[in-house]
Every structure is written in structure tokens, then in C-alpha cells.
């Protein structure tokens, strides 16, 4: 008999790992110098980063904050013995114009209104974005916010947003009544019709009448005074907020069994995606006037908002369709087998999962839309890029480029980075283990 039997009599205690495996040294060894090729790459990258910073930092650190013109900047730098094309940044322009880059030509004594609008935007978004940390009662405010927002920015009589809100209330009432008595689809049609009739025909009488009874309002501000970052955020926020629900409807429509609905959605999506945004903006700024009856005053920002929203919605629809396609058929069958009807299963089972899958794509679209808002400078709206041209036209600042673009880029980056981080947080939060 060979002796292959073995029984351990004593268990080994746990030991500290060797120093080279843990701590800072271990980390550096593992991640930066694990073999000669990695070491070479590390050294090269460090050299590259050093070169970039060596060029950038001295340029950024430049005592020109108080200068009043480009010439003055050059003098300051010259006095310091700094010469050449990239001797230093001329921050005077940011100092003098940052307010304008943010608010455009919005009347100075009314700055509190856009500020209030955006602070309240945060309040309205909180229960939506952080549903587990913020009391859900705030959602009522979120629902009212879309009516407060334009009123704060454009001002005017309070009865206009009230009338807009009433349109929804009436449409909802009609939907409820008809969908109970007949079918959900007919309910939708009835609700939409009632709301449209109210908005297009009746609401102006209502506003006029209420105004003559009780004229409550704040000072109106015209659209052409809008500009700067405030304009970008306005367009971005509205397009983002409207394109998501519209995109969901389009994505569902594209999957619908009703052929007419389906082809309308497909046609819309393919058409919008096939046309550059800039074309749509030109249509908004010039062509639309040809179709509207002469004398109609259809606000340019409103037109741009509609176009950007439609554009974003088409992309959103395709992103969401991807999420829908990724859901296994079993989810639909599970929902069906429990007796949930179409809308219930969409709302409770399908959409929550499809949207969760599509979060990265949705946020990419959001970020893209937000950055695309800079295109409105081409049709003459004064977004930050449009303003930067206007500022350069000023003799004092003729020749300034990097400072302005850098500042604008930083603002955009802050917002886009925020959105991207939020989407990662959301993905982590919604992760419930694999199926």
C-alpha cells in the first residue's frame, strides 16, 4: 500500500501580503511599471502631460484680471517682461463681460428672475432625479414648474401660464371621461382635441377677460434680449424635458400594431434624423415665416425650441427603441399573463426597464442636444458663441479668442460632466442584479 492518504492537522493562519503588493508602492508597480513597455508608456505620458502643463499654466496665470482692453493686457505683460504671442491670457474680457456671457442682454434689474427660474429648476428636478432622498410631495411642484419657468423668464400676465395649465386640466378631464365611456385611444384623441381647441381658440379670450378683472403680472422681457448661457440652458432644458416623453411616444408608436400610427412615427423619425439640425434651424428662422399668415408674431425662441425638441425627440426615440429591443419577450408575456393591459404593462414593466437600459444613450443625447444649442448662433441668436463674436467686434477686445472660448467651454463642460456623472449614479442606483 502506498501512502497517499493525507489529513491536515493544523490550519494555516492568514498572513500579511508582501509590501510590494499593497499600498502606494504596490499600486504604482501594478498600474504604471508592470513591465518595460508599460514603464516606457508611463514615462512618455508623464513627459507629454508635463509639456502641456508647462505651456498652459504660465499662460493661465496672468495678472490681467483688471485690464480694460487687449492693448492694456499687452502692456501689463510687457511690463512683466513676458513677450510673444502666447505671453499670457487676457482675463480682463471675462471680468468685464462674464455677466453678459451668462445673461445676454436681459435687463439688469431683472437678473433675479432667470436666477430664480434656475434655482427653482433645481427644486423641481430634485424629486425627479433623487427620488429616494427627496419627499415625493415635491413632485406637485415639479408638475407646475413648466408653467412657472416661461413666466419667470418672459414675464407678462400670470393668466397666460394659468390658461396653459387649464388646457392640460381640461384635456385630462376629457380623456378621463371618454376613455371610461369608450376606449383609451378615443380618450386620447378627445383629450388632445379639447386641449388644442382651448389653447388655440378659447384661451386668449380667457386671458383677456381675466386680465381685465385682475391684472396680475410682472414686467415682460422680449425674446431678443435673451442671450448668453441663460439662452443655452433654456433651450437645452426645454428640449431635454420635452424630447424624453415625445421620444417615448415615438418609440412606442414605431412598435405599434396600428399601421398608420407606426408609419407616421417611422416617417417622422427618419425624416428628422436625415436632416441636419442647422437646416431645421434655418427653417425655423426664415422659411416658417413664409407659411405663417402675415403679421403673426411667432416668437423666434419658441420656434427654435420646437425645432430642437423635435430633433432631439427623433434621436431619443431611436435610443429608447434600442432599449425596448433589448428586453426579452418574456417580460411582455409575464406582464400579459397577469392581465395588465397595454398601458399598464408599458408603464410598469416595459418602460422602466427599457429606459434603464437606455440611460447611457439617453444622457448622450441630452449632452449632444445641450451642446448643439450653440448652433443657434448661426441664425443670429446670441448664445455664448454668438456673444463671443459680438464681444470681439468691440474695438477693445478685437483679437481675443482663447479666453472667451475657454470660459464658454468650461461652462459647458461643467454641465455636461454633471449630467454624465448623474447618469452613472443613476445606473448604479437602479442596478438590481442581473436577471
Amino acid at each position, binding site marked *: 500500500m502506498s501512502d497517499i492518504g493525507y489529513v491536515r492537522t493544523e490550519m494555516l493562519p492568514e498572513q500579511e501580503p508582501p509590501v510590494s503588493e499593497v499600498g502606494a508602492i504596490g499600486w504604482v508597480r501594478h498600474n504604471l511599471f508592470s513591465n518595460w513597455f508599460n514603464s516606457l508608456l508611463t514615462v512618455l505620458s508623464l513627459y507629454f502631460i508635463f509639456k502641456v502643463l508647462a505651456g498652459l499654466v504660465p499662460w493661465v496665470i496672468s495678472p490681467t484680471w483688471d485690464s480694460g482692453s487687449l492693448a492694456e493686457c499687452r502692456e501689463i505683460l510687457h511690463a512683466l517682461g513676458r513677450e510673444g504671442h502666447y505671453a499670457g491670457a487676457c482675463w480682463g474680457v471675462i471680468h468685464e463681460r462674464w455677466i453678459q456671457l451668462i445673461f445676454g442682454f436681459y435687463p439688469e434689474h431683472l437678473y433675479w428672475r432667470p436666477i430664480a427660474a434656475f434655482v427653482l429648476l433645481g427644486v423641481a428636478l430634485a424629486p425627479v432625479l433623487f427620488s429616494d432622498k427627496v419627499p415625493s410631495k415635491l413632485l406637485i411642484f415639479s408638475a407646475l414648474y413648466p408653467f412657472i419657468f416661461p413666466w419667470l423668464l418672459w414675464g407678462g400676465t400670470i393668466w397666460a401660464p394659468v390658461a396653459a395649465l387649464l388646457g392640460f386640466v381640461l384635456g385630462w378631464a376629457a380623456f378621463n371621461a371618454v376613455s371610461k365611456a369608450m376606449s383609451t385611444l378615443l380618450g386620447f384623441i378627445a383629450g388632445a382635441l379639447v386641449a388644442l381647441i382651448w389653447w388655440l381658440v378659447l384661451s386668449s379670450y380667457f386671458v383677456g377677460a381675466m386680465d381685465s378683472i385682475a391684472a396680475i403680472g410682472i414686467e415682460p422681457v422680449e425674446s431678443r434680449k435673451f442671450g448668453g448661457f441663460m439662452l443655452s440652458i433654456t433651450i437645452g432644458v426645454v428640449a431635454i424635458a420635452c424630447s424624453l416623453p415625445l421620444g417615448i411616444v415615438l418609440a412606442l408608436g414605431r412598435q405599434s400594431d396600428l399601421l398608420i400610427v407606426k408609419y407616421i412615427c417611422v416617417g417622422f423619425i427618419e425624416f428628422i434624423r436625415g436632416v441636419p439640425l442647422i437646416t431645421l434651424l434655418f427653417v425655423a428662422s426664415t422659411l416658417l415665416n413664409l407659411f405663417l399668415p402675415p403679421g403673426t408674431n411667432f416668437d423666434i425662441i419658441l420656434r427654435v425650441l420646437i425645432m430642437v425638441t423635435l430633433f432631439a425627440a427623433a434621436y431619443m426615440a431611436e435610443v429608447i427603441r434600442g432599449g425596448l429591443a433589448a428586453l426579452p419577450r*418574456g417580460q411582455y408575456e409575464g406582464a400579459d*399573463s397577469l*392581465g395588465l393591459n397595454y398601458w399598464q404593462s408599458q408603464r410598469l414593466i416595459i418602460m*422602466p426597464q427599457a429606459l434603464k437600459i437606455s440611460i447611457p444613450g439617453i444622457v448622450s443625447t441630452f449632452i449632444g442636444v445641450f451642446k448643439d444649442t450653440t448652433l443657434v448662433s448661426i441664425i443670429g441668436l446670441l448664445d455664448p458663441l454668438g456673444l463671443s463674436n459680438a464681444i470681439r467686434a468691440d474695438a477693445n477686445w478685437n483679437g481675443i479668442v482663447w479666453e472667451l472660448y475657454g470660459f464658454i467651454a468650461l461652462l459647458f463642460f461643467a454641465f455636461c460632466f454633471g449630467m454624465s456623472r448623474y447618469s452613472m449614479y443613476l445606473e448604479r442606483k437602479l442596478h*438590481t442584479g442581473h436577471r
Partner: protein
Amino acid sequence: MSQLSVEREIDRSKMQVSDEVAIEINNMNKWYGAFHVLRDINLTVNRGERIVIAGPSGSGKSTLIRCINALEEHQQGKIVVDGTELSNDLKNIDKIRSEVGMVFQHFNLFPHLSILENCTLAPIWVRKTPRKEAEERAMHFLEKVKIPEQADKYPGQLSGGQQQRVAIARSLCMMPRIMLFDEPTSALDPEMIKEVLDTMIELAEEGMTMLCVTHEMGFARQVANRVIFMDAGQIVEQNEPEEFFNNPKSERTKLFLSQILGH
């Protein structure tokens, strides 16, 4: 195939078959495009019956039981479930679906909802049960399938056998009068099969009307009062389990049984 996995005595006292008809299928035909998948199906199921449907792969077993709760549409013939005829009327379909529970091979739990939410969703939205009552009922059924402690987890965190038991509990929360099972154990490891079968046997003991597509012949012998053998979209043979297994009549049945039990 796995042998009879449950040895305990079965209480047949409540497993009475009544005269009341639960499901009636008359001359039903179904096509997928040009493919005639179900051919002239006639089947009457009385309340309290436990029927096992067996047959080779692709014979149309799944399609048949999916027709019963209108997950698939049939083109000819008549299906009456609980006195309601299946038609294109969506209201009828939703009503039947809420009366008929279905358990799938791949569970089809909702991964974004907790176990408890999976179980309360349909009662709350379809039956309009108050949330509190729905939760109590869900806990009752989760206890019955022996996993009340998992109520707050998500489906992704459970084993296959546990998920399938949740799926059964989820169906039961709708208080169905008929339960359909489509190969509930074939995606499971052997030791999990037993826990799911135990649950199904308990259901049978309580007098639930059940239609099970399954290859668990031990379960069929023990619980079913009728075994149906399907091939090529048709019902080829049906009989009481003893007769069916010991004394099959048709050649196809014999062949099938020899393959499935033969080693």
C-alpha cells in the same frame, strides 16, 4: 429522466374533479404563417382536474397552453375559459388572463421590482386591491412557497428554484381559478426541481385546476388525473396516468415513452 422526486404520501381528499367545466376547446386550429401548428384540438377540462401534457419537442404543447390565455391567437375554433369565450375583445382577454395564472420555463419575473413588488403589482393594478391587503396576501403566498424571507430581494439575487417559486406565488396572488405551467422545471438543476414540484403538488392537493407541460413523469404519475400526449400539433393519446404509462396504445406514445423513460 429524473425519477419520482417526491416520496411523501399525497392527500387526494381534496383533489376531487367536479362536473363543472373550466376550459373547453372545440375544433381549434392555429397556424404560424403557413405552418399548421395546432390541428383540430378538442379538449375539455373540468374544475379540479390536473392535466399533464407531454410530447416531443416542437409538437405544439407550449402553443396550446399559450392559446388558453391568449398569449397566442388561434385562427379557427372556439376556446371557452371559465365561461368566457376568447375573442378579439381586449376586455375579455384581460379578464381571462387575470383569472388564469401562468408559470413560464424562464420564470419571467420582473427584474426591476423586488420579490414583494412582483407579487403585489398585478393585484394592485388589475384587481385594484388596496396595497396593504395585496402585501399581506403576497406574504401569505410567499410563505406558502417557503421563501417569505426573500421578499425584499430582487429576482437577480435568487436561485433558479427560488425564482420559479416566486413566479408561482406571483400568479397565485391574482387568485386564479386555473393555473398553466409551461415546463416549469426544465431550466432548473435537479435539486431545485424538487422544491418547485413540491410547491406544485401542494397546489394540486388544494384542488387547483392545473395544466402542466412537463417532462417530469414522476409528477405526472403522482398528481395528474389525465395525461395528454401530443405530436405534430395533434392530441395523439390521452388517458389516466396508470394506463398511459403502463399500457400506451399508440406507436408514437410507446416510442416517446421508451425514449423518455427507457434507461
